[in-house]
């Protein structure tokens, strides 16, 4: 066979590929390609403030305004880092124990409030701190207090409620739902404490503050873009968590046991390995990661009641989309989720005041549902 004929597909092969059964996949691929082209080339700036058509976006296309494109990309990456930190804990627990820890969000919330109390206690202000008032120690100590607290609470929850019904997935999901309802309600009753009289309790919004040295811009030397150092620090922490988890799972014995347990729990335990201890370790690490994520995001934004539901949902979505049980899948899911929601908010057309950027969150979830429709186990999920 000549090289030429080997490259060109035969009519039959082409017909098979373009058959109607492949239509949904082709359509999806076409939409994705169009979306990329739209962001990169097709979109334009509005002619004047307020006007718009299907092509206008806030900043125009990437080719036209590369520095804005770069900023949005960095926004997405940094947000993905925060998502990854919180979701990796959830992914670890789900991957190993097949336990959907619906209390993950409540642990996150509790960690945020504990860290707030510690930071306020250290700096002694009782209200929002300016970055200049916070040094690195004032940020690390709250983390060092919150993470072990939540790790212990996670361990207690797992030993008391989840150890003896391993394998009953729905029951465990229901138990953790109950725990989350109780914990969230108790948080509302007892936090925040170290704040003004009228703001005490009720789960009111409070925030942590990054250390002062992060409050500046970094010149990226590309297109004159100045980017916030705090967000880059967040990206750094996310990368560190990712690398740390990879090293732990792939270069240590405990990690090896966990991976074995993810693949085949029964066999691992039949080999004489104390699988219960491994479960406990995984739950502790997973909860500690939720705490780290809370401290990071509370510094970036704030912490308030209601965020437990939001972050549980974020973790669920990231882990499901990326593929359950895989750290790499959690990273992929976080990146997809962050990019779609950030780019949607800025690169959806602005046809007028009422459309369309406010539908970015709907778009994100519709895409999630579509991913699940085509790949029910997630993008990188194993077919267990």
């Amino acid at each position: 066979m000549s090289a030429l004929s080997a490259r060109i597909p035969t009519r039959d092969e082409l017909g098979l590929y373009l058959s109607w059964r492949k239509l949904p996949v082709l359509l999806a691929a076409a939409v994705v390609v169009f979306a990329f082209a739209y962001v990169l080339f097709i979109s334009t700036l509005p002619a004047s403030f307020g006007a718009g058509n299907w092509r206008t976006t806030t900043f125009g296309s990437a080719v036209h305004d590369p520095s804005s494109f770069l900023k949005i990309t960095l926004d997405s990456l940094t947000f993905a880092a925060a998502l990854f930190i919180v979701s990796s804990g959830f992914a670890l627990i789900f991957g190993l124990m097949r336990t959907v820890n619906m209390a993950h969000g409540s642990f996150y919330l509790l960690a945020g409030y504990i860290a707030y109390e510690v930071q306020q206690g250290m700096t002694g202000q009782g209200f929002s701190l300016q970055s200049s008032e916070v040094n690195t120690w004032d940020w690390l100590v709250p983390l060092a207090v919150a993470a072990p607290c939540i790790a212990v609470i996670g361990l207690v929850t797992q030993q008391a409620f989840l150890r003896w019904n391993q394998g009953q997935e729905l029951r465990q999901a229901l138990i953790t739902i109950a725990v989350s309802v109780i914990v969230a309600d108790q948080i509302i009753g007892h936090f925040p404490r170290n704040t003004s009289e009228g703001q005490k309790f009720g789960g009111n919004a409070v925030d942590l503050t990054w250390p002062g040295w992060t409050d500046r811009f970094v010149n990226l030397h590309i297109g004159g873009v100045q980017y916030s150092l705090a967000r880059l620090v967040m990206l750094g922490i996310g990368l560190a968590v990712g690398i740390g988890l990879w090293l732990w799972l792939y270069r240590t014995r405990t990690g090896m046991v966990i991976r074995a347990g993810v693949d085949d729990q029964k066999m691992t335990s039949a080999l004489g390995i104390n699988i219960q201890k491994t479960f406990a370790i995984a739950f502790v690490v997973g909860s500690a990661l939720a705490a780290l994520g809370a401290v990071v995001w509370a510094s970036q934004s704030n912490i308030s009641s209601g965020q437990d539901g939001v972050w549980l949902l974020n973790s669920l979505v990231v882990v499901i989309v990326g593929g359950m049980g895989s750290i790499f899948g959690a990273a992929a899911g976080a990146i997809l989720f962050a990019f779609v929601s950030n780019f949607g908010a800025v690169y959806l057309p602005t046809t007028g005041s009422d459309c369309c950027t406010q539908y970015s969150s709907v778009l994100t979830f519709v895409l999630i549902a579509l991913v699940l429709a085509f790949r029910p186990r997630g993008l990188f999920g194993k077919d267990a």
Partner: protein
Amino acid sequence: MRRLKLRSWKTAGVLVVISAAAVAVLSTGALASSHAKAVRVAIMTDCKGAFAFGYDVDIGGANTAFAQFAHGVTKSHSKPSAGMTGIKVGSTPIQVVGYGCGNDTVPTAVTETKRLMEKLNADVMIGPLSGDEAVYVANYAKAHPTKTFIIGTAGSQDPTMQIAPKNLFRYHGDGAQWNAGIGEIAYKKLGWRKAAIMMDDYSFGWTSAAGMIADFCAVGGDIVKRVFPPLNTTDYAPFVRQLPPPNQVDGYFWVVGGTGTGAALKAYEQAYGKLDPKQNIGNLFFGFLGADKVVAPKVVGSYVGGFGNMPGVHNPKVDAYRAYAKKLYPAQNVDDGFFYNYYMAAKALVLGLQKSGGALGAKLQAALPRSIQGPFQISNGGNVKLDARRQAIQDQYQLQLVKNPDGSVSPQVIAYVPGVDQSFGGLFKPTSPPPGRTQPPCKKVTTPWQGKIKVVANGKVTNQILK
């Protein structure tokens, strides 16, 4: 078999009797109707969600009016929700039958309203606290004309503009009215001509923003971009990116509330650098409801939309109110809009009952005052007047965040805006759509208070017009 059958019938019979007894016991509770001549009042507020802290504040305000005008005696000086005794208007006792516990969302408002008005059989409701709850209560009021409803401190426009049932009253301004004058301040004192606005994507965000937009556009300003992050947005960064950069606009209006204010401002700082007080104006969420501790330190010096209250301003009437309320509830901030609005609602109820002689229903609705003395009111002889739709025409006070000697930051009144009505001089009509993402449009109109805003300095309202 026969023995089993007998036993099974016995057991069944016992069970039926027990359940019937239980039902009877519970239903007597349900059946117990109010036949006393006491007026049954329910106070609807929030104890969960974004305004959870409002619970004791609102009840404290209402209790203060009951104490001052209806001989009420508070059970606890530190916790208003412990209740009151001895509330009496003439010979008619007032019984506070329950406190509603909302969470700022509609489904809870539904349950709580029905619990208060149907299970506890309240005749009058004072409340609710938040805008969307009030829209529901207004629709409910329309369906229950024999009950009377006096809004607590909700800021949505619809209840008294588009829905406006005859048995619903509001003795304070709505969210748009609270911001009257701030646009003119931005135009005249800061020289803004083009501004962008970020608002929460729900009714209070739209209503509060409507006040800023209407006021700013009325004097000739232009709102070039409106951004609406949904409530419970996790990352405000993409929405802040939608705002024009600081070199393309003169300023930003912020109508992001509750849990999002600090987060949105942080996101702005990370995108565009330190906040310039001259380029940022917020609504009451910059200075009140806890923001003085969390948000205000970032924006010291910026102007802040009002809340119908006048912190720091002194005159005999206001100081007398403060002294009285502080003596009753020393821990409460009696200058807080929440506290004051519930105070005025309860005061109106007492005056109405005095005039109606304790009668309820349509008689009470006719007797409720159409003009009432308010400590925070200066124009119109110190009277807050109700318009034809039972909505207050109220003086407003615009503020600026200042740093106090002890390091804390608090809002201080710098401008007095007399006689603000809900229609903004005809811009908002019952037939016009309620405030929304594109409502109101940016139009140059003449508001009744344009050019009449007075400067407030050193806690005193001067006669100097704002230039």
